[in-house]
């Protein structure tokens, strides 16, 4: 446990984190996660965060050492896509029972479980995650993993990020530490070129990275691996030979990027594939850094040509939507990287951001939002569900973009809503993804369903029909009249 505490301290002490550098020594020791308030907390735990980062390694087995809830309530719940192996979508857990805990069988059961997984599935590696309970009873997963690695000849990687250690963000970083300590640099790549890059914090959710990768292919830039979207274990293990690291998920893996630079001299930069100008900037940055690292100089000119072509094409494709979306007011409620990258993307088609949230954002994120929006719209720290409901109910926004957690607040307020968080099913990355996002936005905002669901019931609270408010479908009246007029006199005989 003491080794683990040191690790958490080390993560909190990240020298590449600007926010951290501004703190005093004493503040820094307290760590960067805010204390959670009982009865008023939301969000995932460190285990959740660690699994988010590591599970997209698609050919590895992911084994959760704990009682059922940790894995049972969370498996196969993200849409990190794979182009091949599907083992990552199979859930493995030791499902610790009361007896296992009381009898102290944890380590023994874990070893047997690892053995069963390796014997049945022959994965290139097994990631073993600790959880609150197994950490509390003192199971030494590092020792078990070390033993198993030696005995089985397969890398068995301990992921020490129990839920109660802190937030999801801390878990992201601890997963980065795991990769640095146990995985990256343990194998040599089969091929290595002067234009090899890694993308850190890209999880290929909804297959999003496949909207971007062809751009690199066209430039002759070889994406050695994403850490960890659609990654194979060997690719991650040999990622230390790449020439440039791009970091896409804000500061989630900044510790890993910084350490890879220190140890293997891989420069990194932070960028995004959301929005037209962000995508172009990312390509530009990569080309520039690669040339500095020894790639052929013409890469820069070729990149500019590709950017010019792609931008011209994307603007052409967005043109028809500009008219339909101009002046539409968006409430953007999301955290971290998504805020500024989506803001810039949406403003490109004339959408107005009426409110945006700054939860989970870094100072750089905040600065960028300020830069984009000026001081005009409200920038929220947090919004209580009740207030959000009232805001939407009063029609102060035409659509809310957020994650699943707040989805039903918008829907119950009969307001259009679009998922832009990581659980979504639609890919929105790169130039083509931007067109998809705008298309989807248009289809959502301009859906006739909103008018229909807002029609008040044609009766009062006691259920008495009120003719006053009742709007008759004009086509129905016309059809009825026509049918009436066409009838023969004899049809009325019996009346």
């Amino acid at each position, binding site marked *: 446990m003491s080794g683990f505490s040191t690790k958490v301290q080390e993560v909190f002490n990240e020298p590449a984190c600007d926010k951290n550098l501004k703190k005093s020594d004493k503040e820094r020791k307290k760590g960067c996660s805010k204390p*959670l*308030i*009982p*009865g*008023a*907390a*939301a*969000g*995932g*735990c*460190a*285990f*959740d965060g660690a699994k988010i980062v590591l599970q997209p390694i698609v050919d590895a087995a992911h084994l959760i050492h*704990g*009682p*059922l*809830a*940790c894995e*049972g*309530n*969370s*498996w*196969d*719940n993200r849409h990190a896509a794979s182009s091949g192996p*599907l083992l990552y979508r*199979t*859930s*493995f*857990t*030791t*499902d*610790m*029972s*009361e007896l*296992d*805990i009381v009898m102290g069988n944890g380590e023994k*059961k874990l070893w*047997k*479980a690892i*053995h*069963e*997984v390796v014997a049945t599935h022959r994965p290139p590696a097994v990631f073993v995650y600790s959880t*609150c*309970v197994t950490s*509390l009873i003192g199971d030494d997963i590092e020792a078990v993993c070390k033993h198993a690695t030696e005995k089985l000849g397969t890398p068995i990687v301990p992921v020490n990020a*129990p*839920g*109660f*250690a*802190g937030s999801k963000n801390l878990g992201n970083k601890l997963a980065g530490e795991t990769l640095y300590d146990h995985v990256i640099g343990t194998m040599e790549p089969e091929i290595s070129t002067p234009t090899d890059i890694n993308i850190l914090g890209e999880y290929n959710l909804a297959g999003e990275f496949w909207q971007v990768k062809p751009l690199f292919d066209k430039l002759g830039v070889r994406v050695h691996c994403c850490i960890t979207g659609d990654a194979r274990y060997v690719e991650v293990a040999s990622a230390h030979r790449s020439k440039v690291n791009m970091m896409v998920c804000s500061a989630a893996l900044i510790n890993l990027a910084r350490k890879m630079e220190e140890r293997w001299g891989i420069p990194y930069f932070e960028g995004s594939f959301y929005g037209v100008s962000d995508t172009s900037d990312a390509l530009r940055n990569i080309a520039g850094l690669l040339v500095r690292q020894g790639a052929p100089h013409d890469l820069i000119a070729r990149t500019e040509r590709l950017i010019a072509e792609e931008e011209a094409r994307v603007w052409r494709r967005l043109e028809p939507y500009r008219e339909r979306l101009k002046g539409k007011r968006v409430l953007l409620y999301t955290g971290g990287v998504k805020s500024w990258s989506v803001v810039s993307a949406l403003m490109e088609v004339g959408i107005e951001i009426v409110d945006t949230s700054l939860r989970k954002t870094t100072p750089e994120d905040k600065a960028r939002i300020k830069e984009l929006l000026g001081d005009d719209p409200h920038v929220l720290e947090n919004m209580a*569900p*009740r207030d959000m409901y009232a805001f939407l*109910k009063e029609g102060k926004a035409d659509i809310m973009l957020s994650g*699943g*957690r707040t*989805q*039903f*607040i918008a829907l*119950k307020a*009969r307001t259009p809503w679009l998922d832009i968080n990581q659980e979504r099913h639609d890919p929105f990355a790169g130039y083509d993804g931007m067109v998809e996002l705008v298309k989807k936005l248009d289809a959502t905002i301009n859906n006739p369903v909103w008018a229909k669901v807002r029609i008040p019931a044609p009766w009062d609270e006691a259920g008495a029909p009120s003719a006053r408010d009742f709007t008759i479908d004009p086509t129905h009246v016309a059809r009825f009249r026509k049918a009436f007029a066409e009838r023969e006199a004899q049809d009325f005989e019996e009346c």
Partner: protein
Amino acid sequence: MNAVAPITKSVSTNPLKTSAPLGAALAWLGVDGAVPLFHGSQGCTAFALVLLVRHFKEMIPLQTTAMNEVSTIVGGADHVEEALLNLKKRMNPRFIGICSTALTETRGEDFVGDLRLIRARREAELEGTEVAFASTPDFSGAMEEGWAKAVAATIEALVPAGQSGTVKGQVNVLAGLHLSPADAEALRDMIESFGLKPIILPDLSCALDGAVADEWRATARGGVTVEEIAAMGRSKATLVIGEHMRAPGQTLEQRTGVPSLWFDHLTGIEACDRLCVELAHLGHCSVPPRLRRERARLVDVMLDGHFFFAGRKMAVAAEPDLLLATTRLMNDLGAEISAAITTTPGSKALTQVPAREVLVGDLGDLEARAKGADLIATHSHGRQAAERLHVPHLRIGFPIFDRLGAAYRRSALYDGSRQAIFEIANLFQAAHREVTPDSLNPFLLRQKEMRA
């Protein structure tokens, strides 16, 4: 009678089980004005919340005591107290249901004693909010157990012992987890059609039906009220639906003396017939014409539907009572239960399952045993197995996150049984493949069998 086979392996592959706290939370969502509170780390709550939202497509009020490393070591009573006060201040719930988790149970605390002290100390602040506690460690039992423990805890907290006097026509229903919100609503209508007034605990029928209201409310809405629960001691009888509801049923009976009528489930013609007879006795009336008609319809649907069931092999994985209800219905129409997997041993319901053996296991076991089956029935996580096995997948239980309408699915009473039969028969019809020369070639078929 069949044999129940326990777990022998160390790794659970693709869990079938959903753990107890989630079941407890779900039960409490059926109490009007409630907020369930997990006593554990915030991740426990976040995962459960997301899963509930994915299933019901509704907002779910669920809170956490947000335990961390330090509070776990020194004890979490302070966190429980703070959480209660914060919830009261922020949401003013009528009822708070606290359930423990694996984390706090592993550490081991005197939850009941702590809670008593907190409530005494904070009497004024917590005025108007009832609190119940259920011990639901994730490492013991599964969702049905959690649900039942929450119901028992609610009865103990809210139903006074030894009430006298019976309210005319009032009956209690202790509804099991295997009744969907729509099933519960249909049951209410049915009981009312006998001139009786039901109090259903828990009552998800108007709580998780998603009806769009015109005002915001942070707590659970639409379930049974605290006042109704308190009046359960003055009912004529209690209908206890599900073997897993036996313990809360006994608690209620011992506390109040209200006699219980026990049902394993309400699926299939015999169970519904028995329910009708019991209700007719309780209401001193005959079975209403509408129900007689529903029965005749079910008979017709069984006749139309049996063609699709006869001789078909079904592989079913579910919590014990749901497993029993589902396999019974399939078996009634002539299907063979080729694999039956469940979450926990010990339930008497398992011995009634019409299969040679019931295995306590996971979806990995289901997949292995479903080779050669014509259909698998389990929750949405069975989708990977169904795809690999190329068989239709009937979604039952929790969670169902890849189909709309989980709250409205029916499997109980005459009309619900009818719908369940339709659904299965239609899955077979949708999966129908035209015959080809190869598909009927006896030699090719033999080769295929050899390989399998």
